[in-house]
């Protein structure tokens, strides 16, 4: 087989929702590459299309949404054209997913042990007894106390943090190559969040799983990720290595996001704000979609859409400020 350096490569992905009001371009031409054994962050505010991107990778986009263009190359294999049956073999085995709400993503009428061993029985040719053994083993690994006893607990008997551990266990039990985590710690308290992030990093380094971390929390990105993609209204606005992005944010949107976080030094100056609000995807502004909120907007920004510009060192930003042709004029 051909050698691929990137585990997952999304090329020009467009996922649109066909609603009564019109076509909503929730994901509008996204390119993301996830290298082997790395943690990639996908950040943005609500409605920017980060979750829809994840759902598109997994083929979980529901009616009226549909992938209208693009490729999702997983080890060089295009997932976007796979049938449901083929996807079922990949989901949970090669790619798994953790959701934000650990209460609604577990089935309340089955024990957690049964739900996790179901994943093993589906994808691996093992006996029920062995599946149970492996479930208990993974429970121990993700730090669930008394795993033998917990095997027969129901989701409602567990706290939010423990439920999220069960979800992570379920996602890791088949040693997937890629784990997609959609806001896995948003519903949790800070001390529990720290535990879960620690656990994810530990599992990642032990098993070499790549993680696509979807979050709105820039703190979580800084703590966990190697690379970051910043999304805004369906498009990737900036992409860089995590240290580079936090030290030298280039796109005005990323700059605004980083500066609107209350400063930890405790100075009581006014917070930097990005004026206005996220545009309606049905009525996207002409030109750059961030333009109406941008402080550095120029005339060209209202007329033409910028392309992702390469800034060197793998740093990219979708902004005319870095377009040599435009700025040279």
């Amino acid at each position, binding site marked *: 087989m051909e050698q691929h350096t990137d585990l997952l490569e999304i090329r020009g992905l467009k996922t649109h929702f066909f609603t009564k009001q019109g076509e909503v371009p929730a994901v509008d031409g996204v390119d993301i590459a996830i290298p082997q054994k790395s943690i990639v962050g996908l950040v943005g505010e609500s409605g920017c299309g980060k979750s829809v991107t994840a759902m598109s990778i997994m083929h979980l986009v529901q009616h009226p949404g549909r992938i209208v263009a693009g490729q999702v190359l997983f080890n060089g294999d295009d997932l976007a054209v796979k049938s449901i049956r083929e996807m079922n073999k990949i989901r949970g085995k090669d790619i798994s997913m953790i959701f934000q709400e650990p209460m609604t993503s577990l089935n309340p009428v089955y024990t957690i042990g049964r739900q996790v061993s179901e994943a093993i029985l589906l994808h691996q040719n093992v006996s029920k007894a062995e599946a149970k053994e492996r479930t208990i083993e993974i429970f121990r690994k993700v730090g669930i106390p008394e795993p033998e006893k917990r095997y027969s607990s129901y989701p409602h008997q567990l706290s939010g943090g423990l439920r999220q551990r069960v979800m992570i266990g379920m996602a890791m039990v088949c040693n997937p190559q890629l784990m997609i985590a959609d806001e896995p710690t948003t519903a949790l308290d*800070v001390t529990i969040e720290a535990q879960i992030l620690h656990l994810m990093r530990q599992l990642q380094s032990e098993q070499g799983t790549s993680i696509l971390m979807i979050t709105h929390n820039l703190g979580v990105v800084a703590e966990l990720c190697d690379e970051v993609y910043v999304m805004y209204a369906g498009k990737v606005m900036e992409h860089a290595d995590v240290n580079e992005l936090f030290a030298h944010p280039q796109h005005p949107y990323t700059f605004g996001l980083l500066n609107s*976080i209350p400063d930890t030094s405790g100075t009581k100056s006014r917070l930097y704000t990005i004026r206005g609000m996220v545009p309606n995807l049905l009525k996207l502004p002409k030109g750059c979609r961030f333009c109406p909120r941008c402080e550095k907007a120029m005339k060209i920004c209202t007329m033409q859409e910028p392309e992702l510009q390469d800034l060197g060192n793998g740093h990219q930003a979708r902004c005319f400020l870095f377009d040599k042709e435009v700025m040279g004029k």
Partner: protein
Amino acid sequence: MSDKKLVEVRNLVKEFKVSSSMWKKSTSVVHAVSDVTFDIYQGETLALVGESGCGKSTLGRLILNLIEPTAGSVTFDGQNMQKLKPEDLRQLRRQMQLIFQDPYASLNPRWSIRDIVAEPLETFHVYKTKAETTKRVEELLKTCGIRPEFINRYPHQFSGGQRQRVGIARALALNPRLIVCDEPVSALDVSIQAQVLNLLGDLQQEMDLTYLFISHDLSVVRYLSDRVCVMFLGKICEIGTTKDVYESPLHPYTRFLLEAVPKPDPTKRKEDKDMLIGEIPSPVNPPSGCRFHTRCPFATEQCSKEEPVLHEVSAGRMAACHLVK
């Protein structure tokens, strides 16, 4: 901030009875708030922080007397709220307001925002005519950054940040002195959160407001508050000025809480953070002695037996821990 005490909370206790079944009599008790004592000074922002279930929202509602305490008292501007006659209490309530966490659930979807913001004005018959009330509503909306032309729109026509502004306008309608903000920005995106925080800061300066700011977001609290009160399982662990608490936390829980916050700076990443082990204990059966001892790495035998008292460590600085002298 002045030295005048606006609210004095003394030995406040709130217990909720819970029953295991609909038909059975209540069997167990949730100790939501246990023996809490503190003051809120005129013009300050006091933050109440803690994890879910620590009783911070219950405490906020107790201070507004929206729920009756099981024991203890709340004194607002020298008047003991538990001893007031209903009509006196009603009048006193004009001076205190609440801003809610969820801007979607806290506005009636069938009312226009004019009616929503006018409700407190009409309840207390502040103005004689409808036109005067509407004029005041327009002013309030303008103060909060909503264009007065939108006065006849309905909540669903606004974004989350704008709805929160409507909620703030409603809270300001009666010129209150105290506003309890119960997680007012936790449902908002960062860029919108910054706008609302700036608005709250501006309003405080203009109108000499006192805030009780309930939040689990420690970076927001650091930004906004003058003093911080850290709660764990219905008890106060530590009170002090924001600077003191963040720079030299006394109680082990405060230390871990601050350490746990993900910092938006990848250069400060630590592979081995000091982390709290275990889960938050249940407020139905709080641990004996110090309620934090089951998770505390410094716990001694004394901690599991004796409950530490909140004591003054230095001026204005209090902690409840046996190890802090």
